[in-house]
């Protein structure tokens, strides 16, 4: 039951990030690039909730993108589902409060996602602009995503700790002894 509720909360977070990224942030363009909030949300949530939840949330995020924007249904879904799966494999081997490793994971996922988009959108049409694309599109987006991740990831980890995390044995024993 708790897993189902966690998934619903995760879906809500993904939906909010999607709306913020497409509707709210299109006006603000300091560097004329926007951070990829969806990557941050999918990577963070799969780090907290595990690889199965990561697959599902990634698929949901990708379907949102594809239905509204993508040329093909299933393209972003595939990318985000694999991102959720691979990042979810890291669950359980890191401190939730630690910032460096999740941010590193977010940056790597963002790079891989952007590069896959480049491959399928440009390379398959023989537009070989990899060097230009990396320096002018991917790097600025990674910088923006990093800055946004510094803000968003701690918020999500607080949400996870307060709402979604199951209590450990020691905490349950503590609560039982307090009530007794």
């Amino acid at each position: 039951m708790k897993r189902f509720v966690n998934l619903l909360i995760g879906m809500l977070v993904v939906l909010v990030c999607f709306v913020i990224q497409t509707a709210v942030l299109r006006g603000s363009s300091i560097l004329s690039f926007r951070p990829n909030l969806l990557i941050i949300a999918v990577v963070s949530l799969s780090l907290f909730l595990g690889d199965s939840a990561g697959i599902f949330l990634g698929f949901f995020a990708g379907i949102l993108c594809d239905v509204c924007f993508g040329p093909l249904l299933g393209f972003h879904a595939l990318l985000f589902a694999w991102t959720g799966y691979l990042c979810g494999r890291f669950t359980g081997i890191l401190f939730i409060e630690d910032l460096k490793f999740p941010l590193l994971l977010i940056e790597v996922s963002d790079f891989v996602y952007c590069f896959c988009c480049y491959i399928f959108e440009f390379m398959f049409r023989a537009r070989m602009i990899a060097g230009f694309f990396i320096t002018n599109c991917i790097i600025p987006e990674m910088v923006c995503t990093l800055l946004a991740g510094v803000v968003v990831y701690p918020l999500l980890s607080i949400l996870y700790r307060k709402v979604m995390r199951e209590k450990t044995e020691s905490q349950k024993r503590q609560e039982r002894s307090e009530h007794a």
Partner: protein
Amino acid sequence: MSQGPNIEKIDKEEKFQIPAKYWILFISALCVILIVVTFNTAALDGVTDTGAGYVVIPFQEGVTAVGGALRQHAQSVKELRSLREENAALRSELDDVKSELSVLQQQSYELSRLQELYRVDQQYVSYEKTGARIIAKDPGNWYHTFLIDKGSDDGLAVDMNVIASGGLVGRITKTGPGWSRVESIINDNANVAGCVLSTQDDLMVSGDLTLYSEGMIRFSQLVDSEGAVVEGDKVVTSRISDKYLPGILIGYISTTHRDYNNITRSGYLIPAVDFEHLDTVLVILRTKDIPDEEETESGK
């Protein structure tokens, strides 16, 4: 006090679960099937359009409306002081403008006579149009597709041209009940058949990601042996385009150079529309009817 790694899973009554690796294989297969199906057919378009219409579009429209209302409120508070002075100045200006208007009306009659003389076809200014607001841009940073808040319920259909402030923005590629997706001409895989207004030479205008930071798009296949096309010439949509109505301003020629084959010219074009600051657009409620011809994937 920071907790240790979260490896204690308590749920003793947990039922048997399918391991994640089978889920990822299943999801990957499903995605590949979806990609193939949507690439080859339009079978799933109805489902996804209404689904998006219910789930996401209301949020985006709501956020855009709230943002717009807040911005307007802030602006009105700022402008209140200067409005009274402006009012007096405007009244006197109005009288001057009224007399200018009658002169311009005379000139417009003369213009329509001259147009008939040169047999210029119906300009796009007289097509029926409807306004729409942009509610979302694509989440990536380079597709340059966006969503508008009118759809098939408002009479919009796929392939209708979208313009803004007198220049071509793009065309509708997908419609839902209350929303539509517009692909702009600066998109890297967009192609528009254009022609130079002064010499009536045809050319092909393409979007280009590498050029957009310089504010330009490229053109190619211009057959102009006398070199009559110069910098600043207007480029409009051509009659031979099968998706775009003729005569819509695309942009202005910036540079040209001869191709290696010595027959055609290519170069760069500055688009007439400022794509960085688009907010509202106009949709022309007429599609170009080409009988007995298959639609190509990129609008030509």
